[in-house]
């Protein structure tokens, strides 16, 4: 029996395909929660920025920081270089702040949180009770017997509903709380690091976020500490016509380690919703951060109505020697994805990795990839991107590998593969390669092809229907990335692959 368990674990990543395929259904998280909300008036102005700051009980320096960003933002143009085609966004026709009324008086602990909110997360498979839980996995019969703890920060529209395991984390010196709480409780850390990776002037969406971000997560891992559990944030957009602008700041001090998971869903609505987040990660000497995302925003319906417009700036700064960061993303949702999680490899011998699966079906469009900016000596980066395009979708990998003159003896390896399912979709690869020193080596490979007919027939001859066969082959195609995810996430991602491709064949 012992060796069987052994084998199951090793096979764990893909053994869920069967259940997945059996459970295939359309977007599972499309319901909404009826709850009384409090909104700021529609539109954006200095007053709205002040209001958001005030609602969060922020000190003056923070209000000023936001206002500076806002004033900058009004002078900026929305970028148009991505291969994305969407109707013009009216930034004045959005709510920039929405929170459940029950959150007005901040609950002191999760016990005081509105049961409706807790039920929402329960339904999403994210129980907010402090117990042995498996992030984001419903009915996973493969739970390891010794279930792992995952601390969760749950963000509902504009506010953080609650954060679990805070006390236990505090014992290890780890700070895990909402960013609004961090601004109040840990101003010295926030002031030192906020905007130091993604400056408020960085780009149109990041600047917008800097002005209006309402909540998000804050993580600080002190020197030498290995975070005792995985941390996760679960973002839920619920309110209509409401943008979500969360801000995440993760600081891994010298020699520390943390694995961080991010999940997101939104109700099915037939109008598009805006999401413009910023994630900043600071990695100091010898520290390591793993950041995994399973992005499952509502992708819009089969005719391309509704869905989330996702414009996200994520960047990690390996600020000191031997810092290490790994981005893993599974992008299945969103009508529009504009997202380039990047690594600035500043410290000597620092390392950046980017593993991505982007699946687009129906009318979805994704323009996503990464930037690896090599500044320090002996820096290493690796990019593995798997794009799958079906229906009438457009899927673009866009990436930059830059070796600065001083980044001597550095290495990059990039592999970008695209798979096309059907003849109405598109798959594109737009890599930028900039090598400014000769001792570094850069290798880039990219392929585009369709699901192999022989593989398809082989699977069908063994009894799988076409959709199952495609799901199996696509999971194989994306295996290298799925393996980079924490196990529970990998299983969820695997199911998502199949669900996302529903209706793409035949």
């Amino acid at each position, binding site marked *: 029996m012992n060796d*069987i368990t052994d084998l199951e674990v090793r096979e764990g990543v893909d053994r869920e*395909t069967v259940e997945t395929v059996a459970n295939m259904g359309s977007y599972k998280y499309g319901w909404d929660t009826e709850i009384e909300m409090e909104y700021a008036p529609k539109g954006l102005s200095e007053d709205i920025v002040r209001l958001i700051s005030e609602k969060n009980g922020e000190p003056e320096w923070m209000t000023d920081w936001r206002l500076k960003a806002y004033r900058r933002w009004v002078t900026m143009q929305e970028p148009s270089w991505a291969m994305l085609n969407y109707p013009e966004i009216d930034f004045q026709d959005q709510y920039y702040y929405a929170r459940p009324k029950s959150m007005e008086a901040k609950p002191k602990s999760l016990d005081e949180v509105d049961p409706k909110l807790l039920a929402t997360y329960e339904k999403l498979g994210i129980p907010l009770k402090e117990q042995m839980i498996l992030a984001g996995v419903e009915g996973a*019969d493969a739970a390891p017997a010794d279930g792992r703890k995952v601390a969760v920060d749950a963000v509902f529209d504009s506010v953080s509903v609650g954060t679990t395991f805070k006390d236990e984390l505090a014992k290890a010196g780890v700070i895990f709380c909402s960013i609004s709480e961090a601004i109040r409780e840990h101003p010295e850390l926030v002031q030192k690091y906020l905007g130091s990776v993604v400056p408020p002037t960085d780009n149109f969406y990041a600047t917008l976020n800097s002005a209006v971000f309402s909540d998000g997560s804050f993580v600080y891992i002190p020197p030498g500490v290995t975070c005792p559990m995985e941390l996760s944030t679960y973002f839920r957009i619920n309110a209509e016509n409401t943008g979500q602008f969360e801000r995440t700041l993760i600081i891994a001090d010298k020699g520390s380690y943390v694995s961080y998971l991010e999940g997101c869903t939104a109700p099915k609505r037939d109008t598009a919703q805006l999401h413009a987040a910023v994630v900043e990660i600071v990695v100091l000497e010898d520290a390591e951060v793993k950041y995994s995302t399973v992005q499952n925003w509502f992708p819009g319906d089969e005719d391309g109505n509704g869905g989330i417009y996702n414009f996200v700036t994520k960047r990690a700064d390996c600020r000191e020697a031997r810092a290490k960061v790994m981005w893993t993303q599974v992008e299945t949702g969103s009508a529009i994805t504009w997202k380039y999680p990047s690594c600035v490899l500043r410290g000597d011998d620092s390392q950046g990795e980017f593993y991505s699966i982007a699946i687009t079906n129906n009318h979805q469009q994704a323009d996503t990839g990464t930037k690896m900016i090599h500044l320090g000596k002996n820096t290493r980066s690796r990019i593995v991107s798997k794009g799958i395009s079906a229906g009438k979708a457009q899927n673009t990998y866009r990436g930059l590998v830059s070796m600065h003159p001083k980044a001597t003896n550095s290495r990059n390896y990039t592999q970008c593969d695209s798979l096309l399912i059907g003849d109405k979709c598109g798959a594109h690869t737009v890599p930028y390669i900039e090598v400014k020193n000769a001792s570094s080596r850069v290798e880039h490979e990219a392929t585009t092809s369709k699901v192999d007919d022989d*593989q398809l027939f082989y*699977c069908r001859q063994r*009894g799988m*229907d076409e959709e199952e066969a495609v799901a199996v082959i696509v999971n194989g195609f*994306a295996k290298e990335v799925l393996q980079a995810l924490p196990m529970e996430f990998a299983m969820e991602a695997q199911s998502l692959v199949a669900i996302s491709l529903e209706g793409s064949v035949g």
Partner: protein
Amino acid sequence: MLKINNLHAKLEDEDKQILKGVSLEVPAGEVHAIMGPNGSGKSTTSYVLSGRDGYEVTDGSATLYGEDLLEMEPEERAAAGLFLAFQYPVEIPGVGNMTFLRTALNAQRKRRGEEELSAAEFLKLIREKGKALNIDADMLKRPVNVGFSGGEKKRNEILQMAVLEPKMCILDETDSGLDVDAMRLVADGVNALRAPDRAFLVITHYQRLLDHIRPDVVHIMSDGKIVKTGGPELALEVEQNGYADLLSEVA
């Protein structure tokens, strides 16, 4: 069990008739061989029966236990009990052998209205079958056919056969690319699977495989038709005199 009557098929894209009236019947428990020169339509027969794209049936019928195979999708034929051991088993990078086989088995079971196997039950089954066929667990963990030697690929086909337990097994040139030892291993696997309720159709160019898998009936195929049917001695005749003699005699 398997009844093929006057089967005509052509390539979908070209006006080239390949099968020109194949008729044969394989009863349960028997092993039949189809032999014939290159280009006679042997492999096409296996593809048409299993429903590969690219062929158009222009006339005739093929049934398995009275069910019309030609109307079914490939996976429906598989669930109905038809198994094709490929001449060139396909490599599927990234997909573990175990996952592949479990997905296939449960898909077939589901289609037949049978209970699906849990991970543990499946593991037990595959270990049992693997052991019986002398296939080590390491091979099961690797991606489907990727990096397998020719012999390993064919043994993997036999393992799949053992796990899926089909009624009607078609072996398409299973001996191609195998040395004598590998061929013996594969043949042993097939022989172990012979059963009163299972039939085999062994497609081969050479007689040598039939030394190891003894057929009950041998059909000689030429230019898209079965031109002669007889006992195992027919295979020996081909071995000794070649196809030319036999075919001229038929003509």
